[in-house]
């Protein structure tokens, strides 16, 4: 039930942003649409709604995760641009396995997406039970678990642990 209420609020907020400036007709139509969406899809939205009530998690997300993420995204683009423009095409690709301590759906999703948008890495598959991510790496620096974790996982895992687990 909590998950449905949350879904309703978010769907309604997105509707309001999309139909800015809000007036009565838009708000009524939006409420109807958001109710339908929440009734049909609400139960799939969040399995742990109580996690959304901790203000510290939002604080970490906005002031710790987002700056790191945007910085890594910029670095990733310059990295790809360099490899693409370089006449010698300096790539040494391969698929490596990353072990992570994260287990929750949201945490793993965010880790996989963050890894995809950071320099030289792309998540290919996730094994949720064992917390393993298979990552395509454009320039493999080493295949043993420690190197992989240090180069790929260590930037985001501690932050996401704080936000989505514990």
């Amino acid at each position: 039930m909590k998950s449905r209420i949350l879904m309703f609020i978010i769907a309604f907020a997105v509707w309001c942003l999309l139909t800015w400036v809000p007036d009565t007709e838009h708000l009524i139509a939006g409420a109807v649409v958001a109710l339908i969406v929440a009734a049909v899809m609400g139960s799939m939205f969040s399995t742990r709604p109580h996690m959304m009530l901790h203000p510290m998690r939002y604080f970490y997300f906005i002031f710790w995760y987002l700056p790191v993420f945007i910085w890594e995204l910029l670095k990733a683009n310059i990295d790809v641009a360099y490899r693409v423009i370089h006449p010698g095409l300096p790539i040494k690709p391969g698929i490596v396995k990353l072990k992570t301590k994260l287990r929750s759906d949201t945490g793993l999703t965010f880790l996989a997406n963050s890894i995809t948008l950071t320099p030289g890495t792309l998540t290919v598959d996730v094994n949720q039970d064992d917390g393993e991510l298979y990552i395509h790496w454009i320039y493999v620096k080493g295949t043993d678990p420690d190197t992989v974790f240090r180069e790929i996982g260590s930037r985001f895992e501690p932050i996401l642990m704080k936000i989505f687990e514990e």
Partner: protein
Amino acid sequence: MIDTIGMVFIALGLTFDVLGCVGLVRLPDVYNRLQAATKCVTLGTCSILFGTFLITIDTSLATGLKALVAIVFLVLASPVAAHAVSRGAHRAGVKLWEGSVVDQYAEDKEGEE
């Protein structure tokens, strides 16, 4: 002033989009191409949308807000799409480029099927 900053963002975004497309042509296999396509196109398009937001902020807030909502959905959706395409490609048996050094995914999957 804010118009100029917006234009700079749009120009940067276009540059990254172009580089992403160059990568799509130059890199050897499907996985490397996805790398270029996902990263450059995400940041490039987000940058164009943010520039649009800055330019229209005085005249029409409605357009700017839609651009911001589009950024959020783009950042959420494009890595998921890349993940789905690469996983599908690997499962369908698309080989890695011959210069690839390691494929631990294939090693782990051998026992499954």
